[in-house]
């Protein structure tokens, strides 16, 4: 079995057979593996090495030493180091049996004269005095023994699969705008989805609101869509299991002002809505009933959010304060004092540690640490009109009045820093919202005043990769389905909601 196989002459036939043998064994086909070795005449492991490792597995250290000395075919990289490792195990065994004489003997007369691994050697006598200086796991010992042999002598377990995975991973990395689920990857063909897997075609238009639609958001389980409108209502849409089409489940009526946002509880059983300069309401998704109203007398609500565990509500009110309520309406004390500016957006990270809020007069975002009660302030280059947190709470998506979208990294351990900048969409008078989405949250989608939906990939800041026309008015908000890479929803001044999917032509 000599020579190489394949067009580039890089793959040695004997090695291919060996890693295939290893793969067959890991799939459970021991018989076939043996047949392969027999028929090809190529062993997965040299028999002398196999004998050595078998003896080592049975902790027959003296036998191993003997093999090292006598077997011609047993080539190790450094014989003295090999002997040292084996003698060390013998030494430790003597110690365990309380055989001090033999232990000392092994140490002084056999190990020290080798003249290798001095530092390790000098730590060994301490084991006489300090009994529990940590015992090395047997797997560590076998690993060290395996490393004694030249690299190609032993095939690491699962080598073939590892090589294949690397190859697939590279295909994914090389695929610009990759937005396909991992199940799409195959060993049978090279993967490249290019932009074909980005939602770009309107698959459904949802009509139900009677005025501008200002906000929408998919539920965490991706089965519902909630939208809110200037028509003083919010609507919960449900996806039909078979057709994949949305239909209206409930219209939430009760507000007397336009509904600014509608947000899902962590368990998707409830939503909260915020009336413009009015009150905050909590609704049950199943029945569509309003369960509770939150607010302050004479102070209108500007924005709201859920406590990370769904046990309470956050309200940003017109008196420039942030309030926290339990679900039953009782107020929870909040440490932040009155802010210097009107707060327009507020959210809590999913671990409950941070309260993020944005005001509109000053160009800053406030990160309030609920544990230390400390505040970190991020200065941005322009007035912030809205923000959105990534699902892993590590990134902050910020929409600026300067028609730019910035992404900040806020992983808590280091100073917040800006990592991306996107532009291309239009925003001049209204609040436009954007969101993360797609494969690994690598995409950013945003609405725009020119009635189009803009999509960027975070690897390509230069410009949007897709621009989707269709709406008849400014697109105010977008939401990417968290459980479906290929579904996007947009809300517009044209009173409709569009669901975007793949263009399958």
């Amino acid at each position, binding site marked *: 079995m000599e020579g190489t196989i394949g067009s580039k002459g890089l793959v040695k036939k004997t090695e291919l057979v060996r890693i295939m043998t290893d793969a067959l064994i890991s799939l459970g086909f021991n018989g076939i593996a043996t047949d392969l070795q027999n028929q090809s005449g190529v062993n997965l492991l040299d028999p002398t090495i196999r004998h050595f490792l078998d003896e080592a597995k049975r902790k027959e250290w003296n036998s191993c030493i003997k093999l090292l000395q006598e077997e011609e075919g047993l080539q190790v990289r450094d014989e003295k180091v090999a002997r040292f490792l084996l003698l060390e195990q013998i030494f430790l065994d003597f110690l365990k049996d309380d055989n*001090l*004489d033999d232990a*000392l003997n092994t*140490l*002084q*007369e056999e*190990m*020290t004269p080798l003249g290798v691994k*001095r530092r390790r*050697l*000098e*730590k*060994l*006598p*301490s084991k*006489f*005095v*300090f009994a529990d200086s940590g015992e090395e796991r047997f797997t560590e010992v076998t690993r060290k023994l395996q490393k004694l042999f030249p690299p190609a002598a032993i095939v690491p377990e699962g080598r073939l699969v590892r090589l294949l995975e690397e190859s697939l991973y590279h295909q994914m990395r090389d695929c610009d705008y990759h937005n396909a689920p991992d199940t799409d990857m195959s060993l049978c063909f090279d993967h490249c989805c290019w932009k074909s897997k980005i939602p770009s075609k309107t698959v459904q238009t949802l009509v139900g609101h009677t005025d501008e639609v200002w906000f929408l958001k998919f539920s965490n389980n991706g089965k519902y869509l909630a939208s809110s409108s200037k028509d003083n209502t919010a609507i919960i849409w449900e996806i039909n299991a078979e057709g994949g089409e949305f239909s209206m489940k409930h219209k939430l009526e009760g507000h007397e002002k336009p509904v600014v946002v509608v947000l899902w509880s962590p368990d998707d059983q409830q939503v909260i809505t915020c009336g413009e300069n009015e009150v905050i309401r909590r609704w049950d998704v199943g029945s569509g009933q309003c369960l509770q109203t939150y607010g302050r007398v004479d102070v209108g609500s500007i924005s709201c959010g859920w406590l990370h565990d769904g046990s309470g509500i956050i309200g940003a009110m017109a008196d420039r304060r942030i309030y926290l309520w339990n679900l039953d309406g009782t107020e929870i004390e909040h440490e932040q004092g009155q802010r210097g500016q009107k707060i327009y957006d507020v959210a809590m990270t999913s671990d409950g540690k941070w309260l993020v809020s944005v005001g509109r007069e000053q160009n800053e975002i406030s990160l309030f640490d609920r544990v230390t009660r400390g505040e970190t302030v991020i200065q941005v280059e322009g007035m912030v009109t809205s923000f959105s947190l990534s699902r892993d709470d590590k990134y902050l998506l910020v929409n600026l009045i300067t028609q730019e979208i910035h992404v900040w990294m806020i992983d808590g351990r280091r100073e917040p820093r800006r990592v991306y900048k996107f532009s291309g969409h239009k925003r001049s008078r209204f609040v436009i919202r954007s969101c993360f989405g797609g494969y690994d949250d690598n995409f950013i989608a945003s609405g725009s005043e020119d009635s189009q939906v803009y999509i960027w990939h975070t690897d390509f800041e230069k410009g949007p990769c897709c621009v989707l026309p269709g709406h008849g008015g400014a697109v105010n908000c977008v939401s990417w389905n968290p459980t479906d890479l290929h579904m996007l929803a947009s809300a517009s001044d044209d009173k409709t909601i569009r669901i975007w999917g793949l263009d399958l032509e």
Partner: protein
Amino acid sequence: MDPRQLEHIVVKDNDIQSIVMSYLLHNCFDETADSLASTTGINQPVIDRDNLERRKQIMHCILEKKALKAVELTEQLGQELLEKNKDLHFDLLCLHFVELICDGKSKEALEFAKTSLAPFGMVQKYVGKLEDAIALLAYEDPEKSPMFYLLSSEYRQQVADNLNRTLLEHASQPSYTPMERLLQQVTVARQYLTEENGKDAFPPFSLKDYVKG
């Protein structure tokens, strides 16, 4: 510096003899001190003879590789002495350990280490030296090990000196001799002058060069 300036300073013989005498007594050279007193006729300062005798005995124990005896004698002088000077206590116990190894009594050394030295292993600052000492066991011939300094007479002398100073302190006597203090002062004074006036005007003080003349 002009050497002629030195001529103007008068140094009394008595002062010099006092300095020499205090050095001898500090280091327990009592016979030499007696000899000096009788030759020059100066009076020996009133010192605690008993304390000197004891110190002399203890120093000899250390130098003659009898560290445990030194510990015993020290404790006789004052129970809390070693407790308050843990570093010293540790050094003495280490010396005993090393003595056992040099005598070929490896197993006894191990037992001793387990009972008396192991507790020190909990404290970070002793761990290094402890590991060095115990590592001697890896060598059939400790003299040939990298830690051979632990066996040297210079090291024993160093430990003995430390103990001597501690004992003097305990007896409310000065732990440094006037001789040492004088030399230290000269060195520091020279350093200040050098800083002010540059290296060439005042080279650093070197006793060795001075003695050579």
